[in-house]
């Protein structure tokens, strides 16, 4: 019985992820817009601060992380809004399966669509900023650990601002302060490596944040959805 239940939970997770990925692939423009925004924001910095390589090298990690933070905010609005507008979300909440699990599936799909492309694009942008290979590796590892946290914490904000006018700006206002620890540890890891120290402590803290977020945010987001859908 419990075995069947577990397999059905996992099955549900896979089902939700697959469904959201299919939906995202049908509207590829949305995915690409986020990625282009990320590339564009990063490319604006050298134009703003000047082309000196020594300065750009120092700034690279911070610029990439801030750009990742901003572009993940952009796509968060879409996390629940389409399902909310066509009534799917209501059906999901009525479903006998755990809402937290459904939410987790949506978070994972959201990360695969909006977080993972940024991680894959980051090395190219890092090279534009002349980052050394080792720092680049740590940056990617940090982004890999950190961007899921952004999707998961952001989901809380997306659920709370569901259907509100001016939801997009409000969402950033709510979520960005909560994401600051991720930013600090993500850039801290790169800085540690560039100064010859080990990045392990920063990466461990990022991993801890990821585990914490994985445990708590699906449930909190589910509660937020219930509040918003009452």
């Amino acid at each position, binding site marked *: 019985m419990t075995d069947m239940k577990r397999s059905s939970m996992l099955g549900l997770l896979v089902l939700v992820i697959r469904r959201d990925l299919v939906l995202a692939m049908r509207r590829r423009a949305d995915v690409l817009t986020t990625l282009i925004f990320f590339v564009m924001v990063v490319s604006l910095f050298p134009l703003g601060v000047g082309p000196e390589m020594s300065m750009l090298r120092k700034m690279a990690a911070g610029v990439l992380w801030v750009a990742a933070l901003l572009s993940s905010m952009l796509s968060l609005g879409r996390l629940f809004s389409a399902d909310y507008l066509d009534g799917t979300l209501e059906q999901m909440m009525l479903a006998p399966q755990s809402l937290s699990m459904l939410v987790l599936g949506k978070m994972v799909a959201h990360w695969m669509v909006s977080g993972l492309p940024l991680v894959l694009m980051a090395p190219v942008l890092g090279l534009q900023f002349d980052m050394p290979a080792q720092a680049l590796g740590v940056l990617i590892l940090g982004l890999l650990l950190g961007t899921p946290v952004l999707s998961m914490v952001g989901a809380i904000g997306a659920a*709370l601002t569901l259907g509100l006018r001016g939801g997009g700006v409000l969402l950033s206002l709510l979520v960005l*302060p*909560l994401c600051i*620890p991720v930013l600090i540890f993500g850039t801290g890891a790169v800085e540690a490596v560039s100064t010859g120290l080990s990045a392990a402590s920063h990466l461990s803290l990022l991993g801890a944040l990821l585990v914490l977020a994985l445990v708590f945010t699906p449930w*909190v987001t589910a509660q937020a959805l219930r*509040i918003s859908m*009452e």
Partner: protein
Amino acid sequence: MAINWFKYSAPTTFYGLAGKLIPWFAIPAAVLFAVGLYIGFAVAPVDAQQGEFYRIIFIHVPSSILSMFLYLIMAGYAALGLIFNTRLSAMMATAIAPTGALFAFISLWTGALWGKPMWGAWWVWDARLTSELILLFLYLGFIALHASIDDPRRADRASALLAIVGSVNVPIIYFSVKWWNTLHQGSTIKFTGTSMHVAMQQAMFIMLAACWLYAIAVVLARVRSIILERERNTVWINELPEAKQ
């Protein structure tokens, strides 16, 4: 006779109680502000290292302490409101937010005024300053979320959840001093004796008490306004003497 512990958890009864309590907090707050500022600015000696500049701490430290505590209290009320579904708790959380934001702002502002002569810069990206700024953002996010939801019930519950999530950040603020190696000086007041002059200590604690009393008085006054606004269609509000005028 059994005591009804929950008598004042109803807006109807709390409205009157808050009205009676306000002078008991407001008047001592005014007196203590006067006394604390007098001791702080006239009696307390000049600091050996920081000269006259240190006197801003009599405003800076109490407002920093209050900005952090008020966030926790706000989150506590928010949690009560979510768990027990009491309307008054949510109203209290809403009433605390602007005062907390005000104290966070004063703390940053006075910190900048102190930083200019002491560190040579209005703003330094040190962990404590940054955390205080994040705290201000959290207050503003709470206020903004509450303000942008029209249905008061959903507004209360949504912002309550946000406050609880945000309160995870308050311990980080507190421990940031230990985590990062920073410019900000460590605490001077410790449980094992302090390195401060007695008059400085007196001024600090009197100002802290004054800020607490002020915060309580203002929150009570604000919660009365919120009750009036929310319950304006009820019979008891329309029977109040101030409504009949």
